[in-house]
């Protein structure tokens, strides 16, 4: 029996290998081995003709579609107070640089989606609202002069089949059927023959769709091993054939866009590059490298090919206050600039830093930054350290997931105050005091971040008001005081590992001051928490007062203002209940960057840091993803969030009285302008940050290992803590 079972297992493994072999892992090559895939970007000059010459409108290009050697763009202009909305269409031919305006004859409708068919006909999905608030959807086809060729009302089909799904993309096939891709990872096909709309097989998650070079429909889907595979065939009955499996890049496998190409079988892009697939050679080629080409892919929302090796897309990276989004054409750089390279090392380098790199590379004629992301390595910090040891140093380090203290202690980083002091228009006093104080080490500043979040714990004033900073003892006392102590939890959705991570930080900062009993107390408390949390209703937990504290990273004002509205009473930001209190921490959100001492181009690296410290960058790029570190920028944001009357800001933006509808899981609140008392409490929260939210993975693994032995019953609490203390002491001795 055992032999048969073994045979069956081996057969299954063999079969699995055979099946996976159908889509053998692809590799990516450069199209021209001798040339980097560098492109130049050019913004298409689509200026709204404002006859009165005023700038009361915001304009943008929101939709782009291409095919048959042309690209069509949908542009809009909206009054800054949103009282009027106008639309235009533009056409760009592959052979000419100029663009032609096409009359948009559907003033009552708004264009939601745009596509160009195999026959070159332009298709639009239009929507309009009736007086009774019902919505109609119309599929309209026009020629290159804007004349309507066909119009079909598909409101019923969309309502009945797609329902509330987001329709993100539309592609007509060769037969004239129209495919819609929705955010629920489904595709809906509108049959030209009978007008029916059918939904794709529910077992298939579709990550994108397009026509390939031959005009057949292709789909990006997950396979059984969570790889992304390009397939073709009948999506509706699930009979699909594999074409290729997407290769992994440095950050894993991902796809942001799939589109038709005149050169390759198909093209796709992720956040790093555009790739083309050659079916004959069964190989992917990197065609356009965003980073090398100075293109900010995070701000790019649509991309298609207009002609061989020329792409067109929409981008919100316009740097013009009145223009919300523009159309960009990307073509091969004919003369590549010979620039020195600065290497930036990091792990999953955050989008804001990528944006800054893109800006640096666009502006700098002598240097460009090459981001080396080690996110896909099993132990990325060890890999980065090995590179440094091997002399393959970096010019800049981004500390997302890196334990900065190791590099600062080993004197591998420059003191940024030295650079700051040389600048006429940058001073320490420009930045929020507590941020610099937390980042400083022995009076030196080894890293700086453009923005930050506040890692803290929040509870109701009625439960915590009499407590200033909360320690563990206080928490236990509070819990015992509650009548419904069986129901009341210490935390909302905290896990064992989450709590151990906080212990780890406290051990790193205050090990000498922690007693054996403190550690025992913590470990015992962590043992009472679940390994993983279940999805529970926040609304119910708040309503039933089921927890004392909720941990959060507040990165913008709504994150702070929501709690008072949610609790229906004053919210107290106590921070995590460490033994000594002071649990509110500065969270750099992985955006802190330092200059390496070994860099041969330190001044050029400092020029990059200056982008992060720029007020315009912090306002338009950082907020609302994080709080700005510049005082003047924070004041500008506070003025916006506190606005009770309309005003015009210094960039000519019309700022309305503040009102934000916020949904946090299943809790809905309306947040209106922040008042003086709330502003005061905000600054006091900022001032309360004493430490940075970071931890040493070495300590973390000691704590985790010993804790696991206690949790699994291998060791008593006492013995687990004994070993933990011993190992941590040894670690600190080694570090010293």
């Amino acid at each position: 029996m055992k032999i048969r079972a073994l045979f069956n297992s081996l057969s299954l493994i063999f079969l699995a290998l055979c099946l996976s072999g159908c889509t053998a892992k692809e590799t990516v090559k450069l199209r021209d081995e001798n040339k980097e895939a560098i492109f130049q970007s050019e913004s298409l000059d689509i200026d709204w003709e404002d006859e009165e010459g005023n700038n009361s409108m915001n304009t943008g290009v929101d939709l782009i579609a291409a095919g048959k050697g042309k690209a069509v763009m949908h542009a809009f202009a909206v009054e800054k107070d949103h009282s009027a909305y106008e639309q235009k269409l533009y056409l760009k031919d592959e052979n000419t640089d100029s663009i032609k305006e096409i009359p948009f004859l559907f003033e009552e409708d708004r264009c939601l989606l745009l596509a160009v068919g195999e026959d070159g006909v332009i298709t639009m999905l239009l929507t309009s609202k009736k007086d009774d608030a019902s919505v109609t959807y119309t599929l309209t086809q026009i020629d290159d002069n804007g004349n309507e060729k066909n119009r079909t009302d598909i409101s019923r089909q969309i309502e009945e089949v797609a329902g509330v799904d987001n329709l993100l993309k539309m592609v007509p096939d060769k037969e004239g059927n129209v495919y819609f891709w929705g955010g629920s990872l489904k595709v809906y096909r509108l049959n030209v023959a009978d007008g029916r709309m059918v939904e794709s097989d529910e077992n298939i998650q579709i990550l994108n769709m397009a026509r390939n070079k031959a005009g057949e429909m292709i789909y990006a889907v997950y396979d059984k091993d969570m790889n992304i595979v390009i397939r073709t065939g009948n999506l509706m009955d699930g009979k699909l054939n594999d074409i290729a499996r997407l290769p992994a890049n440095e950050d894993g496998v991902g796809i942001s866009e799939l589109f038709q190409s005149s050169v390759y079988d198909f093209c796709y892009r992720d956040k790093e590059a555009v790739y083309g697939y050659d079916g004959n050679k069964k190989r992917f080629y990197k065609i356009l490298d965003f980073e090398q080409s100075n293109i900010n892919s995070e701000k790019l929302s649509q991309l298609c090919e207009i002609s061989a090796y020329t792409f067109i897309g929409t981008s919100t990276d316009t740097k013009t206050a009145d223009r919300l989004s523009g159309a960009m054409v990307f073509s091969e750089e004919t003369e590549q600039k010979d620039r020195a390279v600065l290497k930036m090392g990091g792990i999953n380098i955050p989008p804001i830093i990528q944006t800054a790199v893109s800006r640096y590379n666009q502006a700098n004629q002598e240097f460009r930054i090459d981001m080396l992301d080690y996110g896909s390595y099993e132990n990325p910090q060890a890999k980065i350290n090995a590179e440094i040891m091997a002399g393959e140093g970096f010019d800049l380090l981004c500390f997302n997931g890196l334990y900065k203290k190791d590099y600062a202690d080993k004197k591998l980083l420059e003191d940024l105050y030295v650079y700051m002091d040389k600048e006429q228009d940058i001073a320490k006093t420009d930045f929020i005091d507590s941020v610099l104080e937390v980042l400083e080490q022995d009076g030196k500043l080894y890293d700086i971040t453009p923005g930050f979040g506040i890692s803290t714990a929040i509870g109701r004033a009625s439960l915590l008001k009499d407590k200033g900073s909360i320690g563990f003892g206080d928490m236990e006392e509070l819990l015992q005081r509650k009548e419904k102590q069986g129901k009341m939890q210490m935390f909302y959705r905290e896990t064992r590992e989450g709590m151990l991570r906080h212990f780890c930080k406290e051990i790193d900062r205050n090990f000498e001051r922690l007693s054996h009993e403190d550690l025992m107390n913590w470990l015992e408390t962590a043992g009472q928490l679940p390994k993983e949390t279940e999805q529970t209703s926040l609304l119910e937990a708040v309503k039933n007062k089921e927890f004392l504290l909720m941990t959060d990273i507040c990165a913008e004002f709504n994150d702070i203002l929501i709690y008072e509205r949610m609790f229906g009473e004053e919210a107290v930001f106590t921070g995590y209940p460490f033994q000594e209190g002071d649990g509110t921490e500065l969270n750099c959100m992985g955006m802190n960057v330092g200059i390496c001492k070994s860099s041969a181009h330190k001044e050029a690296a400092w020029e990059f840091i200056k982008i992060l410290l720029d007020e315009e960058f912090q306002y338009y790029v950082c907020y609302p993803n994080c709080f700005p570190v510049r005082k003047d920028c924070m004041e500008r944001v506070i003025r916006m969030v506190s606005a009770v009357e309309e005003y015009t800001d210094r960039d000519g933006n019309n700022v309305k009285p503040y009102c934000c509808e916020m949904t946090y899981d299943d809790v809905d609140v309306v947040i209106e302008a922040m008042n003086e008392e709330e502003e005061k409490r905000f600054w006091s929260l900022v001032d309360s940050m004493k430490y940075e939210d970071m931890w040493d993975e070495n300590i973390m693994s000691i704590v985790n290992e010993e804790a696991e032995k206690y949790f699994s019953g291998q060791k008593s609490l006492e013995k687990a803590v004994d070993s933990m203390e011993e190992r941590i002491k040894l670690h600190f001795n080694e570090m010293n």
Partner: protein
Amino acid sequence: MKEKKRNRKIAAIFLTGIFAFLMLIRVEAYNSSTAFNGGTMTYTCTVAGTLGKAGKSSAVASTGYDVGGYIQTIGVFGYDSGSSAISSGYQESVATASTATSIKTGVTSYKAVHSILDSSRSVLKTVKKTVQ
């Protein structure tokens, strides 16, 4: 607010000769719509794969919005069991927007943040949802 939650186990069976293969991809998602400024905003975050320390997963977040003239931002973050973000995707757009994280091992939950901003960067609407 209209909300539809799904938690499905999807099974696909490959039959080749005498062997049968069972594939399980778990999909967790939320799909909700809400009114904003006379229009309807629709939010979706779909997580495919298996959440947990050993599981491979990825999340796709998107938003549809049928009134132009605002900037939409979408961020989706994958967290490990200690609440540390280990994967992310971000996209800005003035039309519908979508972003996907790359496929990662060890993500235990995803949080999607959808926001609508006006040209002054004032946040008019923000939706933060966790998928576990």
